[in-house]
């Protein structure tokens, strides 16, 4: 068998997902992006309800202006690692600004959100140490575990008792353990029981890192996330996040209440052996962070949109992946064909969403995921609701 033959089942899956229409549901080609909420797909203008642009900052005038100015003054890229020639004033300032926002002494910026997990987790836990990770962790966390030389053990999704049991089994080794959880899981949109998870880690002397990729910017005071919302910043050891959701760019960060975290710069391979983020990316991220911290207006609009939309899909009888309304609404279907029919029906109505099917989903679920944005106008939310009302008449929602 050649090296490439093993990919044949993936070709079959791609074919099955594409069978329903002319536009593929995975890697959907965007011909043009018109705004934070509109794009052109297959020659038609569509409403975007399947991005992670939760605060709509990709087209924020101040962020755009900051990026343009940085390109003009500092160039398009750094062409070097942070350990070499790519350590600009903007990178250092952004790290300070993130750390100060949390009131913590240490912060590191990574080139992507994926690398933020990869670089932090793989360096924090090494040989002879342990990583206890939630079973439904993002791929970046699983890959970080593979890069780390630590022993990786999974615990049941969002189950603090299961975590505690595994920590008990480790005995004294629990003190050499990093617990890894996400505050909001992006596939189903479900929140972690963070207080209980943090308590279990603390009781056994383990450290805990919380990935706030899908909650930073949307929850808590100043949008600092769910740890801040729950008053856990004096108990959580590390918070990791991304620039490619609420910040509207690309990159990632990890902040810590432990000053020694700064030393990871000398031991984290994904931090050391890659080019640092380009100046316009850093400049836009700095502007976005200030915008996000400045006021609650964007969050207020986002939560208004969430409340309206969630109430509508619930009224129409759709099954959702989480009881907690949030920026991610996962509509769950037993049959893949029903999920595909909904995704296609929405696209036909001019609304782009995400289709997610096994094995990329937990518990074999078929999901149509809708991500809302503060940039969605009241009229756009109405349009989404009308599309679902029409679709629900044609397709049985919970089938």
């Amino acid at each position: 068998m050649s090296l490439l033959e093993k990919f044949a089942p993936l070709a079959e899956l791609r074919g099955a997902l594409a069978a329903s229409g002319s536009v593929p549901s995975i890697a959907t080609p965007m011909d043009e992006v018109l705004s934070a909420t509109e794009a052109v797909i297959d020659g038609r203008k569509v409403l975007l309800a399947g991005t992670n642009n939760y605060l709509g900052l990709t087209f924020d005038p101040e962020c755009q202006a900051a990026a343009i100015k940085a390109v003009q003054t500092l160039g398009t890229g750094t062409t070097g690692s942070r350990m070499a020639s790519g350590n600009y004033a903007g990178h250092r300032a952004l790290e300070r600004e993130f750390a100060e926002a949390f009131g913590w002494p240490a912060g590191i910026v990574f080139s992507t959100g994926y690398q933020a997990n990869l670089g932090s987790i793989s360096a924090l836990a090494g040989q002879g140490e342990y990583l206890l990770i939630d079973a439904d962790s993002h791929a970046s966390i699983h890959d970080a575990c593979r890069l780390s030389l630590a022993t990786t053990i999974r615990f049941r999704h969002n189950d603090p008792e299961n975590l505690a049991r595994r920590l008990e089994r480790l005995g004294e080794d629990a003190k050499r353990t990093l617990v890894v959880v996400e505050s909001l899981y992006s596939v189903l949109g479900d929140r972690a029981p963070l207080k209980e998870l943090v308590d279990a880690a603390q009781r056994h002397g383990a450290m805990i890192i919380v990935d706030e990729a899908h909650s930073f910017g949307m929850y808590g005071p100043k949008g600092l996330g769910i740890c801040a919302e729950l008053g856990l910043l004096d108990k959580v050891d590390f918070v990791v996040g991304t620039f490619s959701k609420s910040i509207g760019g690309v990159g990632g960060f990890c902040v810590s209440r432990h000053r020694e975290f700064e030393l990871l710069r000398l031991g984290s391979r994904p931090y050391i052996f890659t080019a640092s983020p380009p100046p316009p990316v850093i400049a836009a991220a700095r502007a976005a962070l200030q915008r996000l911290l400045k006021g609650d207006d964007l969050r207020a609009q986002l939560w208004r949109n969430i409340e309206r939309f969630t109430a509508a899909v619930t009224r129409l009888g759709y099954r959702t992946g989480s009881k907690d309304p949030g920026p991610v609404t996962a509509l769950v279907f037993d049959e893949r064909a029903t999920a595909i029919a909904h995704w296609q029906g929405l696209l036909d109505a001019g609304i782009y969403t995400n289709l997610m099917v096994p094995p990329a989903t937990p518990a074999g679920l078929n999901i149509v995921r809708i991500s809302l944005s503060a940039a969605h106008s009241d009229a756009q939310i109405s349009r989404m609701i009308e599309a679902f009302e029409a679709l629900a008449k044609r397709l049985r929602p919970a089938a």
Partner: protein
Amino acid sequence: MVESADRVERVVREALKIACPDIGTVTGSTHLSSELGLDSAQVMDMIMEIEDRLDISIPVAAIAEAHTLDDLCASVRRVAAGS
């Protein structure tokens, strides 16, 4: 903790039945993914069931090379013997 070989195999088979309720005849050499069609998520759910029933924690790396039922039972026995 030392688990008997019989108990480990019984627990593994029970966990397999939960992960794959419509399962037919399974021998020790049955391949979990290519023959039973279990995807990686189903295998990991099955491992969690085994962990709970035997009260052990199975490192992810310990079952990385377990492709058949016999492989899996052998991996679980090694972990159980060491815990």
